[in-house]
């Protein structure tokens, strides 16, 4: 792979008591690369994302983002350039679609105690900046989101996922991690999420795309990593993954005869 490496994790480990959820997993995402992360339920996909983003503590291994050590709470990793969506959409029901996307856009200006005090004082007297409003409208257009004044609590599951992706896109991340973004999405939602992925790719940033649907992931990804019981079962070309014995074994329980 000739792309410069954006995110790299070496021998990542995560245990829950005696259960090993992620075992010696090494992961790399290059600039402009879309990495598909697939595997059946309980394979360790969401746990791997959680340890990368800091939602859970890593028990072993090392993470680097753009050559710098990636550690600390999720906010620090967000500031370093990670953006994510969640397996169960995390949108405040009270906020409107516009406000949810705006949250991703303005986060970089509220990233320290001092900037939070300044943001408070600015918020008392000045409304949302025109360039932020324009950015939100542009992102909404790119991801095919309408009805910006609707409350997130009124949205369908698919639309909530789309808004979550738009919020991550608004962060202008170095690496965007999407956890099952297509689950519950209709055709417009799938197209909007696909466009968000392409925008990040065009900017030379990376995407980790997690989903059960291997065909859908293969259609978008440059490379696929398949996890099984916390370990890497396959890492390579999407076309090869679909035809591989590992795929048959992990998803359909078929044993290999050649080995």
């Amino acid at each position, binding site marked *: 792979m000739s792309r410069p490496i954006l995110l790299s994790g070496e021998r990542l480990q995560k245990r829950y008591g005696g259960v090993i959820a992620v075992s010696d997993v090494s992961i790399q995402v290059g600039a402009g690369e879309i990495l598909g992360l697939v595997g059946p339920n309980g394979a360790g996909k969401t746990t791997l994302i959680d340890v990368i*983003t800091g939602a859970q503590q890593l028990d072993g291994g090392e993470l680097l983002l753009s050559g710098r050590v990636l550690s600390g*709470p*999720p*906010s*620090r*990793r*967000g*500031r370093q350039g*990670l*953006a*994510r969506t*969640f397996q169960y959409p*995390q*949108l*405040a*029901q*009270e*906020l*409107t679609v516009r*406000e*949810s996307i*705006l*949250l991703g856009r*303005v*986060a*970089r*200006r*509220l*990233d*320290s*105690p001092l900037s*939070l*005090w300044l*943001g*408070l004082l*600015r*918020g*008392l*007297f*000045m*409304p*949302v900046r025109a360039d*932020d409003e324009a950015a939100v409208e542009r992102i909404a257009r790119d991801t095919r*989101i*309408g*009805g*910006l*004044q*609707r409350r997130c609590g009124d*949205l*369908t599951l*698919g*639309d909530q996922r*789309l808004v979550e992706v738009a*919020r991550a896109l608004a*962060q202008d991340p170095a690496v965007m991690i999407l956890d099952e973004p297509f689950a519950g999405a*209709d055709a*417009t*939602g799938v197209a*909007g999420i696909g466009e968000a992925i392409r925008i990040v790719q065009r900017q030379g940033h990376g995407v980790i795309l997690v989903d059960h649907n291997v065909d859908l992931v293969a259609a978008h990804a440059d490379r696929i990593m398949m996890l099984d019981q916390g370990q890497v079962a396959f890492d390579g070309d999407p076309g090869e993954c679909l035809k591989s014995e590992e795929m048959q074994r992990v998803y359909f329980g078929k044993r290999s005869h050649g080995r």
Partner: protein
Amino acid sequence: MNALVRRAPLRSRGSVLPQILWAVAGMIAVVLWVGGSGYRQDLMVLSCSYALVGLGMYIPFIMGGSLSAAYSAYAAIGAYTVCIVAVRTSWPLPMAWILGPLVACAVAVLLGMATRRLSGNYLVAVTLLFGFAFQTWTIDASGITGGSSGMLGIRKLEIAGWQVSRQGLFVGSLVVVCSVAFLIERLRLSPWGIALRGKREIPLAVESTGIPVPALELVSLGFGAAVAALGGALFSGYNGGIHPETFGLNILFLAVFMPLVGGVGTPWGAVVGAVLAVQFSLNFPSSIAKSGSFAFAVAVMLVLLLAPKGVLGYLALLRDRMRRRRSDGSAAAGGKQS
């Protein structure tokens, strides 16, 4: 067709002019109601003082979901600062109105840092304990606070040589409360307010965007305490003193319920709730109920059962229904014509 584009939005982004017009109309109505009655004037200044405490609590509690029970102490800090500066120093009194909120803000941030690992009931219990401890301290530290008899007869507020009368303070307090509510409504819709409102429901997602949620919570607690202290300063400035019992546990419960009764969707709900709380508690006709506090408790329960979004939330709902009915009616008429 994406479901997101189905219905046209009915809510505005907190437009400025209607708010100002409503606030001015409300102030004129209050001034007309008060007329020359000193008792009604006292009630309205008390309402303004409570409204500021309620507005202070609105920021971390309603917007941010953090219930700190030390708001009686923050209001008392504002009130005592005015009295201490008036009695024990020769500093100009307007300085005390700034100093009190700053001290309350610093105390709230320190208390928030000390309790940052606590949440829910534990946070309420510890901050409640702080409120009690502060009240005990005001009784014990008689050399500073006047002890159990409090501090009375403080000098009057002077601004640039002009001594502000009680009527002047009354009108000023209306302007201050409306201005603070207006600014907090702007804050609610600002990027900072969006982050804080998001934090209440989805703290991990807000944290993942890069915003340090614990620091955001501390800032909201500090700013809320400063607003509550302004309410305390207003009380002691108008009444010419403070007593350790003035800001006790009762003000805390009122501050919690004021936005719930008035409406949680906007800080103006805390203002409406404060007016209702004072009217029910102190100005309720004794022919209907002997205890005004009991009447207020019944009103709180009725509002929470029948209009969970509070009085203003219910009014907004009625307005939206009427607008929708009107737009449906005009659409049907347009259809018939064509």
